[in-house]
């Protein structure tokens, strides 16, 4: 505390002013009861969040739901359509099933692979190895880089003629390596492969989870004659299941919102092979300005994410073990 005295006084005065301003509503109404004053003070503190929630979240959701039942664009204004947008989405617009398919394939490819790879890395790094901190940093580093930079780097890595990946593939004797982001079949696998590069943040969570497993459990298992693999299966994995569960949910939610990669690397191509839901939404909303239609896409996306989250949540009773939970 080597703060200068005038500074401290000024700070105190500023604080006094702020306090008086915040207390103003209390004084105007004239409530003096401490509990009431505390409640009023609490709502003054909460006011930014309440404004945020009421306008930008609840209000916006309400409006967006309303818009999804209308035809709203720059020219016609707003016209009630009922379920028209949704009907068009599911039965008439060929691009929507495509976007749904692309996003689902990406998610079902990337989520299990990322979750598993991160777990394997964490198990390795949890061993007693040299320079553990340095390895951890190296594996984590890709996760701090932005989507744009990652996309630019990987577009170059996947370049069919001059990229590093095909150079390596040719080096090991594959004469006709895939054309990756320029080919309809290989563009999505390329995205999935690339998503593995970001396994570091999941890994950190697993490492924290692994650190939290009490060693007596392992000792007891050893006494019972369990070998390393049995200990992994019967101690580590059950104890880690809440972390796996958390990562799984977050990865599912994140993977369905994939946008930057397809926007920057492929623009949704070739032939819509990487047209993801959010890219589809972006085009409708911000290139064609069909706000009603785009809102219905947003609500379908929301519904899918909710359904998948609930599915994982429901299934968790079967495989997630919480300490302190009673055996059934």
């Amino acid at each position, binding site marked *: 505390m080597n703060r200068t005295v005038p500074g401290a006084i000024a700070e105190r005065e500023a*604080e006094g002013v702020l*306090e008086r301003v915040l207390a103003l509503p209390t004084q105007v109404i004239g409530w003096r009861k401490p*509990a009431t004053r*505390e*409640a009023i*003070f*609490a*709502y003054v*503190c*909460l006011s*930014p*969040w*309440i*404004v945020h929630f009421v306008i*930008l*979240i609840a*209000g*916006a*959701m309400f409006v*967006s739901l309303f*818009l999804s039942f209308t035809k709203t664009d720059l020219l016609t204004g707003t016209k009630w359509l009922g379920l028209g947008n949704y009907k068009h989405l599911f039965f008439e617009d060929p691009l929507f099933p495509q976007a749904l398919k692309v996003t689902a394939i990406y998610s079902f490819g990337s989520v299990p692979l990322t979750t598993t790879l991160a777990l394997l*890395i964490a198990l*390795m*790094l949890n*061993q007693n*190895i*040299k320079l553990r901190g340095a390895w951890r940093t*190296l*594996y*984590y*580093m*890709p*996760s*701090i880089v*932005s*989507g*744009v*930079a990652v996309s630019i*780097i990987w577009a*170059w*890595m996947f370049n069919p003629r001059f990229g*590093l990946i095909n*150079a390596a593939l040719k*080096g090991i004797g594959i004469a006709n390596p895939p054309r990756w982001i320029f080919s309809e079949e290989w563009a999505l696998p390329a995205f999935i492969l690339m998503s593995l*590069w970001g396994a570091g943040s999941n890994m*950190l969570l697993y490492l924290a989870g692994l650190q939290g497993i009490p060693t007596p459990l392992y000792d007891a298992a050893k006494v019972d004659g369990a070998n390393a693999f049995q200990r992994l299966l019967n101690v580590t994995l059950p104890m880690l299941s809440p972390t796996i569960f*958390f990562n799984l949910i*977050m990865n599912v*939610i994140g993977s369905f919102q994939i*946008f930057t990669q397809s926007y*920057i690397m492929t623009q949704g191509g070739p032939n819509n092979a990487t047209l993801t839901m959010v890219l589809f939404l972006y085009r409708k909303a*911000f290139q064609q300005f069909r*706000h009603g239609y*785009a*809102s219905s*896409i*947003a*609500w379908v*996306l*929301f519904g899918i994410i909710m359904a998948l989250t609930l599915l994982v949540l429901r299934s968790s009773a079967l495989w997630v073990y919480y300490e302190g939970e009673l055996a059934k």
Partner: protein
Amino acid sequence: MNVPSEITMERARRLAVERWLLLAGQILGKIGVHLIVITGAFFFTLPFAWMVSTSLKQGALVFRIPPVWIPPKLIWSNYVIPWTMENFSLFYRNTAIICTLCVLGTMCSSTLVAYAFARLRFPGRGIVFLTVLASLMLPGQVTLIPTYVLFSRLGWVDTWLPLIVPTSLGSAFHIFLLRQYFMTISRELDDAAKIDGCSLLGIFFRIILPLSRPALGVVGIFELMYWWNNFFTPLIYLNRPERMTISIGLRMFQTRDEGHLEWTMAMTVLSVIPLIIVFFIAQRRFIQGIVLTGIKG
């Protein structure tokens, strides 16, 4: 024939072999783990190395097959020429200003909101906190279009307000993180301060905030990284180059495609470097924060 001694010798030999095998297995296992870790780390670093290598090459060398890893002559001008072509210093300045304002904004509001949840008694606390938790899981697309319409009606398109204002009204993620941290601070300190005549706001400023420096650091770093990396929001709201952030500036430069891939790579390296520096300075705190909340920034 001396049967018993042969059996004993046999057993001793078998035991020795077994012990030796076990030891060898352990050593081999250890070497194996190190090998796998090193190989994995190699693959994780490769894209970075490839980017840096490309960024220092002469144009003709970029498309050489098989690839050259270390260019015979390092072309540092790859970093200088594109920098002025697209006014990158402006993009950096803009991004830095936006990040600073967002960090300050969310610090001011989220701390107060979190304080109310962690310490104050008021009717409706459960419900209001539920709104925070629900917002945490909400995919942003459902609120995107009305928010965009609102901001464009307010004339905020092509200003930084759509980026700064929402987070300055409190972000669900930071509120949750700070509330969790505030809950760990002993209430006895509050009571002691109250007895000494400290007001509720005084407790916030004199007790909660000074004791929460680590959590505030985490919030600051997350917010900084988020806005440095964010692509979608600036893409929607910022059109004029004078307003742009580094992420869309970089994208714009990439689409201009001057036929110099090494320039794009050099600018990508530069866009990443500040983040890596911040990460290395604040690494411990950063990892703590991720572990504390379970979500990356």
